[in-house]
């Protein structure tokens, strides 16, 4: 509507003042009466126009009908409050608009109105009196539908308000700088707290002139961000204006707003996180150093029994690479399978605190590692075990010392037994020939007495000869023979004792021995006897041991010699020598099919001068096995006479095995 037609309308309204009363009398629904001055132009204007008098609609144009969703003709005479949300909204509007118009001012406002169908819309309403300064004579309400604009404005306001809230309440420090001059244009409270300075102070700063930015490398990074247009990140100690230092994580983001290049700086105070991380790192480092410095092996075992962690010491002790141990089941390293089961029951299925026991482990090379293990459960916050920590102490050295000590004690006891045996031999075996010497000496003396008496009393030489003959021809030579034999027997016993004593005192020279060669040599010197007995000797592959070569050769010779001597004439002699590696020793078994030893005599064979059948066909000094046992024990081994199914004897000789590291 142009100004001319509007003025014409206003003039018409002012001239026909009487029409107001007519309008007032009209009832709604009555045929519309076109007021004076309501031109065709007004009727078809692109602006909604309401002619209102005394709050009652006199006329509304087509556009107003479209906006309000009504038939313009039907609305004449309706009360104008029809379009307001409620009476209060209408009263409020009427009061404010009335006041403005009465004061000679137009009233303009965005008002939210309701259509007849109930939907709402925003209208920019302009009210003007039809007659200047007399709004009571009629008013024109011009109306534009501004719903889209108003709602957009409201949305924007909401977004801005949200942004504002976010910026001011964010724990992340937000600073905005002008790229052109480096001036700070925005700072949020979080940034103020971090910098420990008021907003005004910070807003006066220029990042290009801040020494702290330069020191922390932020300036360089900011230039890089602005130059490349890419976001930059850094983390480190930042020293602020106020002197406060904190560990910060900063993000520098370049962007352009309304043609101006800006630099957004987001800063997070990570002092606590950093300190916690540092503390954790320090703690982990401390643990790592401790764990690696341990002279004990350490392993963590999960509840299925698999290693989740091992330290290098454990790997070193067991001879495995650390990587080889990871994920393996601990049972693979325990010598005794039954114990694996028991350990699982006892320790993996309950909470353990410091249980400790001795356990034999298998090294990578199969040798025995003697250990003491201590166990403690690793528990979650609820106290439920999640893993088992296993501390492994190598007690091989202590064990070896203990064994040495035990061997020493056993050796002392053996010496003591030998001494007792010696005393026993002195009292029994030496005394037995002595009895003969004494007895037959007395008999000699009696013969001598008899001869002396005969010499004095005999009638003649013939009588003397006849009487003396038994003495001279039988009794006296017999006595002398017994005395001589007894002397020889005492000599043999004393020699035997000396031999034993030498075997006990001989300085031993332990060295790795090729047992195959040693047995071959011993067998070679017995080859003739074995062959004459129509016998055979079979030898398995014998593992090496560590012992004195001379004494081990003596032991083997003795055993083989016995096998040949005590063969059974009823069957061809068969001797077999086999070997076996035990965890801490090597065993050699010498078997024959000879006459054997009855079970009741098995212990006595080791006693000195014991012979099962002195009158038997085999000569011997009763010393062989005593010496064999003595030498086996002196070399840190032992010898047993085993019970077995076959005829003949089965001797088992055990000698120390070579140390693990000495073997290929």
């Amino acid at each position: 509507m142009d100004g001319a037609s509007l003025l014409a309308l206003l003039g018409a309204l002012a001239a026909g003042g009487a029409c107001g009363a007519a309008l007032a009398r009209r009832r709604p629904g009555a045929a519309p009466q076109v007021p004076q001055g309501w031109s065709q132009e007004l009727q078809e204007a692109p602006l909604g126009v309401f002619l209102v008098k005394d709050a009652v609609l006199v006329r509304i144009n087509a556009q107003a009908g479209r906006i309000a969703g009504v038939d313009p003709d039907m609305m004449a005479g309706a009360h104008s409050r029809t379009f307001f949300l409620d009476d209060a909204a209408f009263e409020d509007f009427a009061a404010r608009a009335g006041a403005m118009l009465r004061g000679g001012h137009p009233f303009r406002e965005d008002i939210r109105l309701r259509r007849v169908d109930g939907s709402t819309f925003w209208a920019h309403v302009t009210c003007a009196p039809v007659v200047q300064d007399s709004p009571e004579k009629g008013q024109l309400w011009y109306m534009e539908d501004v719903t889209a604009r108003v709602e957009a404005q409201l949305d924007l306001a909401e977004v801005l308000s949200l942004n504002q809230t976010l910026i001011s309440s964010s724990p992340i420090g937000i600073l905005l700088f002008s790229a052109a001059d480096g001036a700070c244009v925005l700072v949020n409270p979080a940034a103020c707290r971090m910098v420990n300075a008021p907003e005004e102070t910070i807003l006066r700063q220029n990042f290009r002139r801040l020494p702290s930015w330069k020191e922390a490398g932020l300036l360089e990074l900011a230039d890089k961000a602005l130059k490349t247009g890419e976001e930059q990140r850094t983390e480190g100690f930042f020293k602020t204006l106020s002197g406060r230092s904190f560990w910060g994580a900063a993000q520098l983001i370049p962007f352009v707003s309304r043609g101006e290049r800006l630099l957004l700086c987001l800063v997070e105070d990570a002092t606590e996180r950093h300190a916690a991380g540092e503390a954790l790192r320090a703690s982990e480092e401390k643990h790592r150093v401790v764990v690696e410095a341990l002279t004990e092996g350490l392993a963590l075992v999960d509840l299925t029994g698999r290693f989740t962690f091992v330290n290098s010491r454990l790997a070193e002790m067991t001879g495995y690479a650390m990587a080889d141990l990871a994920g393996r089941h601990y049972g693979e390293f325990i010598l005794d399978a039954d114990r694996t089961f028991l350990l699982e029951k006892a320790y993996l299925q309950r909470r353990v605190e410091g249980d400790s026991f001795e356990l034999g482990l298998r090294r990578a090379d199969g040798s025995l590692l003697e250990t003491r293990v201590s166990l403690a459960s690793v528990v979650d916050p609820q106290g439920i075990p999640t893993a088992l920590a296993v501390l492994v102490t190598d007690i091989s050295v202590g064990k070896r010392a203990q064994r040495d000590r035990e061997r020493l004690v056993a050796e002392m006891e053996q010496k003591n037994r030998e001494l007792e045996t010696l005393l026993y031999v002195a009292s029994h075996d030496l005394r037995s020939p002595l009895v003969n010497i004494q007895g037959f000496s007395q008999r000699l003396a009696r013969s001598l007495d008899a001869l002396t008496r005969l010499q004095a009393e005999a009638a003649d030489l013939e009588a003397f000869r006849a009487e003396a003959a038994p003495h001279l021809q039988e009794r006296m030579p017999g006595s002398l023979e017994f005395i001589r034999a007894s002397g020889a027997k005492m000599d043999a016993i004393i020699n035997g004792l000396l031999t034993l004593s030498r075997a006990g005192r001989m300085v031993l020279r332990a060295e790795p021995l090729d047992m195959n060669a040693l047995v071959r040599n011993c067998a070679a010197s017995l080859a003739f006897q074995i062959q004459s007995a129509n016998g055979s000797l079979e030898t398995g592959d014998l593992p090496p041991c560590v012992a004195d070569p001379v004494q081990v050769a003596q032991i083997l010779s003795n055993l083989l010699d016995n096998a040949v001597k005590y063969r059974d004439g009823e069957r061809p002699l068969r001797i077999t020598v086999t070997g076996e590696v035990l965890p801490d020793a090597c065993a050699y078994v010498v078997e024959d099919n000879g006459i054997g030893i009855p079970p009741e005599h098995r212990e006595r064979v080791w006693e000195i001068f014991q012979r099962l059948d002195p009158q038997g066909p085999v000569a011997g000094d009763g010393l062989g096995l005593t010496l064999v046992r003595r030498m086996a024990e002196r070399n840190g081994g032992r010898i047993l006479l085993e019970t077995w199914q076959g005829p003949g004897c089965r001797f088992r000789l055990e000698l120390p095995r070579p140390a693990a590291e000495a073997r290929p």
Partner: protein
Amino acid sequence: VKSPLPFDTVTVLIAEDDEGHAVLIREHLEDAGLANPILRFRDGQEVLDWFQGPGRGERCILLLDINMPRVGGVDVLRRLKADPGTRRVPVIMLTTTDDPAEVAVCYDAGCNLYLTKPRSFEAFSEALLRLGRFLPEIQVAQP
């Protein structure tokens, strides 16, 4: 010379592995006038075998050496004393030592007398005589 044993029919058994000792014992007995039959055994097993076989029910007295091969004197003693058929046979232990422990073992096992060899060959006759006094009682009612 009067026999130290009241019954000539009693057999004297000598269990002794040492040839010389056996000769000395036999001579001492003969020198003392013993006319009884004398049997000599070389080890304990021979003694046990004799009692199981030809000697079953024989009236006899046993001189038993302790230290013998195969079966020792103390074992022989125990087995004789454990067998009702031989339990009453008088046994004199002969040994080269007077070790109190060994003496006790023998008396516990039921020997009648314990004699030490070098000193006691002369004492044999006397001992046999003393034992002989018991023989009428101990030799009755053999199975």
